[in-house]
């Protein structure tokens, strides 16, 4: 089987530590503010709201003394192997860039058929039902100038804040460098997370923290077995969380980790002493 886009120069990816995530939602707010994500008067209508970074609440479903609750931040997974949204796009509005590993979305090219939205196994794509940032109403003054606001009738999704990569590259050029270093380009959610649960970097560069983290046995991906090779990884020492990462049949999931090892890491995490 062809393996991802290893021939490319960079392959940006993300590791989210579920054990560190407190479910505060700062990543969602930071993402929406950074990327000019539209807002509505009634944000409780979740079928119409747009959240590039979404937060899912998960629970192990046990009775009180053993109940555990955790949160799953879900950006676009930026699938590395035949992203389903790219395969179905009829207008070539979305593409996987082999040099960055980012799945791009060009709003001016999108015809709004929402095929990609149906194809995405992670529900990471959203449709614009209304024009939210009309010109000459003053609301456009609050927008990030580096991100183009979307118009009505197009699909949008997380872009791994690729404009921040452009900003980092521009700064590198000003300093006579051709390459950007680790930490110069991070997404808004990575920067905002108060628990520092999100690590962002280049998966093709073995020096980067993310490439070390993804080799860890506690690291897993969502719906790994459908073969889309998502570049967003999750990390958890807890077995029931890793089990929720895919649809396992009864008895199919085999915990691969040494439980004492898991307990050791769990105890070394900051803020876990009181457990």
């Amino acid at each position, binding site marked *: 089987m062809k393996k991802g886009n290893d021939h490319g120069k960079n392959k940006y990816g993300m590791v989210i530590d579920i054990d560190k995530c407190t479910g505060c939602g700062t990543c969602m707010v930071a993402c929406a503010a950074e990327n000019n994500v539209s807002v509505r008067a009634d944000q409780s209508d979740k079928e119409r709201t747009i959240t590039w970074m979404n937060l899912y609440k998960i629970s192990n479903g046990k009775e009180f003394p053993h109940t555990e609750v955790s949160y799953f931040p879900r950006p676009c997974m930026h699938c590395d192997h035949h992203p389903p949204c790219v395969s179905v796009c009829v207008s070539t509005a979305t593409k996987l860039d082999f040099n960055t590993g980012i799945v791009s979305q060009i709003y001016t090219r999108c015809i709004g058929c929402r095929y990609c939205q149906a194809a995405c196994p992670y529900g990471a794509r959203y449709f614009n039902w209304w024009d939210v940032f009309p010109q000459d109403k003053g609301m456009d003054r609050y927008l990030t100038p580096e991100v183009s606001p979307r118009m009505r009738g197009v699909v949008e999704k997380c872009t791994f804040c690729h404009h921040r990569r452009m900003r980092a590259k521009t700064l*590198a050029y000003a300093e006579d460098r051709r390459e950007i270093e680790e930490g110069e380009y991070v997404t808004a959610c990575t920067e905002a997370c108060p628990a520092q649960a999100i690590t962002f970097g280049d998966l093709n560069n073995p020096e980067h923290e993310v490439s070390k983290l993804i080799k860890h046995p506690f690291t897993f991906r969502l719906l790994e077995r459908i073969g889309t090779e998502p570049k967003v990884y999750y990390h958890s020492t807890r077995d029931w969380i890793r089990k929720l990462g895919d649809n396992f049949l009864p008895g199919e999931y085999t915990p691969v980790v040494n439980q004492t090892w898991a307990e050791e890491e769990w105890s070394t995490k900051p803020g876990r002493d009181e457990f």
Partner: protein
Amino acid sequence: MKDPVNSSKKTSDKGGDRPLSGFFPRWMNINILAQDVGFFILGLIGASIVGWVIFPAVLYSKHPQPINFNHALHLDSEKVDGIEGETKAEKCLFCHAFRDDGTFVGIPKLESCTECHDDPESPLGETPEEKAFMTKYVANEEEIPWLVYSKQPDCVYFSHIAHVKMGNIDCATCHGDFADNEKLPLYVKNRLTGYSMNIWGKRISGFYWNKKFSDRMKMDDCARCHTEKGQEQNNACFVCHK
């Protein structure tokens, strides 16, 4: 209702006074043919005039810049202190500079002008343009509402430093040779899209004899140049779109 046999008989009866007149179809008559071709050519010329002359004239509106800026005068290192450089691009960067973080200032703000033109009472030259600039903008500390020829749509991202500093591309390659201009050209705006004609190009045929300077800035031009210079990876969507 119509009987094809009867109708064909009628035509043959009607032209029965001339030999073979019913044999040839009507359009083969040389007089009628000449008439038809004549009408066709007339129509073609008329449609061409409408399409190539009248429609573009109606489509685009012309706007003069608020004041005239003399590029040729300001690039003269004997008249302006500090404008030095071996190439024109280096001289351009004196005012159209890069910030410390690598971003491009574009058209300079009034404070760059007032570094030299600081006193509204004493103009440095003798032109009426400068006097108007002094009284209207410098005295009131008001920004000049320049009409930007190369303003791209909102979805376009362009890094000047990547092209000018890292790619060694001359400013004139994309913007045309502004350095010797004594008068700013008219700003030609598309009435439908609101964009400048410098984006779409002056020639609606899209055909160029002299390719030294491109007078347009379309996506195809960016992609063609990337491909010609062997930078095909920069044709990815998220390099120029945001």
